[in-house]
């Protein structure tokens, strides 16, 4: 495929606000995970919470969209000059030629959780202050972001569980390739809620300690919240850019089980192979693989097998979820931004919190950070329902 450059990008997650905070925490090997004190959740687990969201409100002109998910979106749009950069792109292309494609798993369902605790005892009705379309609905955060950025191009919310905001890159490339727009704001936003905390706990997938991806003693995932955005353009149309480009994508379905990946990682391997074919790259040209690496028993095991199948046993790989937690529908964009930071800064992160790699693993899992030239990174995102997406990012002059 013809590459698209990431003109600019940004992220907010448990590591902090903006690219510098994320990079600093990665470099310093400082985790953003803390014991869960979110609302009144009675679970012994750790989470990657974004500090300060309770105190924020979305901007006055979009007040009807106020909810945790959209607060996180707005906070992120204001990092690294992202919104200001989009204003420049809007002048260049016109608002109708810039699309917004985001990913989420639960949107603003936290508002509905709050409303269900305030139902009328007689009628069961929700409180009058509850707003549905601008918070709970899946499309709400795409609508909020495109209004905030004053864009009028194609817009959609992709919701394929934990691959949501990886698949946005594939959809963006297709929209530009087919001439429906000139540039795309891609991204994702997912915020903590009781649906996911109790839901993952019901499946025995939530760890009691900070998650330890690829560890022999890994005990499950740490749920996180995050948002991230990137502006994608054709290289020849971007006056300046981040030096990182999307080189390929690969999507696949497991067709195996709703909440358990294929044990040999067949669907995951297929997504990685398709990404390599799409980018016209050989496996040995990839310098680092940012794993999905949730620290669940089955995910990490199947992902190790899939990576070994496609890449052999020498390509460096790790999961950064020990830093951020698993941001679910925002995991794809969070790790896309981390991949871009790795390319810009010559960083290959280790698996934070991980003490001893699972002895059954055959891939080259890193335990500690390494520095050196990183030209190309493959980033994996796999979701419930067997939805897989692999992205390849590379240095672009």
């Amino acid at each position: 495929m013809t590459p698209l450059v990431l003109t600019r990008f940004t992220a907010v997650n448990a590591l902090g606000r903006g690219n510098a905070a994320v990079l600093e925490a990665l470099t310093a090997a400082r985790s953003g995970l803390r014991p869960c004190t979110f609302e009144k959740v009675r679970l012994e687990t750790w989470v990657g919470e974004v500090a300060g969201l309770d105190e924020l409100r979305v901007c006055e002109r979009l007040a009807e969209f106020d909810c945790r998910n959209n607060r996180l979106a707005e906070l992120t749009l204001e990092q690294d000059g992202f919104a200001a950069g989009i204003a420049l792109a809007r002048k260049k292309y016109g608002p109708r030629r810039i699309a917004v494609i985001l990913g989420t798993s639960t949107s603003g369902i936290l508002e509905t959780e709050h409303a269900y605790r305030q139902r009328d005892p007689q009628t069961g009705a929700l409180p009058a202050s509850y707003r549905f379309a601008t918070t709970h609905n899946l499309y709400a955060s795409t609508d909020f972001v495109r209004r905030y950025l004053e864009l009028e191009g194609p817009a959609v919310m992709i919701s394929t569980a934990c691959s949501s905001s990886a698949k946005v890159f594939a959809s963006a490339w297709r929209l530009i390739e087919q001439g429906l727009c000139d540039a795309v704001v891609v991204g994702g936003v997912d915020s903590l809620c009781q649906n996911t905390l109790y839901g993952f706990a019901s499946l025995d997938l939530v760890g009691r300690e900070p998650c330890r991806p690829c560890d022999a003693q890994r005990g499950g995932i740490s749920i996180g919240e995050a948002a991230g955005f990137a502006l994608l353009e054709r290289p020849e149309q971007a006056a300046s850019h981040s030096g990182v480009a999307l080189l390929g994508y690969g999507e696949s379905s497991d067709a195996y089980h709703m909440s358990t990946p294929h044990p040999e990682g067949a669907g995951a391997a297929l997504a990685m192979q398709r990404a390599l074919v799409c980018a016209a790259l050989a496996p040995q040209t990839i310098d680092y693989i940012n794993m999905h690496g949730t620290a669940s028993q089955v995910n990490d095991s199947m992902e190790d097998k899939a990576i070994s199948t496609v890449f052999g046993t020498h390509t460096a790989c790790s999961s950064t979820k020990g830093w951020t937690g698993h941001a679910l529908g925002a995991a794809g964009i969070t790790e896309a931004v981390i991949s871009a930071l790795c390319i810009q800064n010559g960083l290959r992160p280790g698996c934070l919190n991980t003490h001893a790699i699972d002895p059954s693993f055959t891939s080259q899992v890193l335990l500690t950070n390494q520095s050196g030239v990183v030209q190309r990174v493959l980033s994996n995102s796999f979701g419930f329902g067997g939805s897989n997406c692999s992205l390849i990012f590379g240095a672009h002059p």
Partner: protein
Amino acid sequence: MIELWIEGVGIFAPGLIGWEQAAAVLAGQQPYAPAAPPKLVPALLPADVRRRTTDHIRLAVEVAGEAVRHAQADAAALWSVFATSESDGAISHNICEEVAKAVPEVSPTRFHNSVTNAPAGYWCMAVQSQAPSTSLSGFDASFGTGLIEAGVQVGAERCSVLLVAHDAPFPEPLHSVRPMSALFGAALVLTPARSARSLARLLVNIEPTLHALSRMADADLDGLRTGNPAARVLPLLAALARREPTDLFLPYVHSQALRVNVQPA
């Protein structure tokens, strides 16, 4: 502009059970007689799997299966796009009710069925497809956003795509804040080139100016169209049923419209 060919249709809604019957109604050859639809029992889901699914999932799999049979397509080879405004409203209600309790007990099956791509997951398992699948939402314009995603997949990837639009009413109290009049599911098999099985060609454009949306002539059918986001596809299905060249305007995001030219094959 996006060019697509339609090879198969599936539909399930009150008074519109399967394409053969629905086409007769939509072409005006039979009166529209809405009635509570029969129980959904998609043949593609084995009984033990079906028991673990919800009506929302069964609705999507039912119409997807019909469209693929109609097109005589290789189900496993099709890419898929599942468009829904609200995902599974009954599950959202149940889990929100549960987590409002002092000691929540969320059902693990219900939780994994709560992901927006659950219907897609069951579909891919049913037909053993490892092809890419995307689930998405555009609120009332969900069908329009699905048609654009499916359209650029057909155009850019030169693949055939199964497009499914599906939504079902919420239980109370969410029904009061996001009312839907009835459940509605429809599916189309879309291909990049004309074949002997092509039913019609579609030319899809995002209309730059405000335009009145296409409606259904029959008041009850138009009530169905406006009563469920997935049913915004009805004017397109009516054009297919009538087999007449037609220019349609279907809802797209931020009050824009998709201009869809339908040319019978």
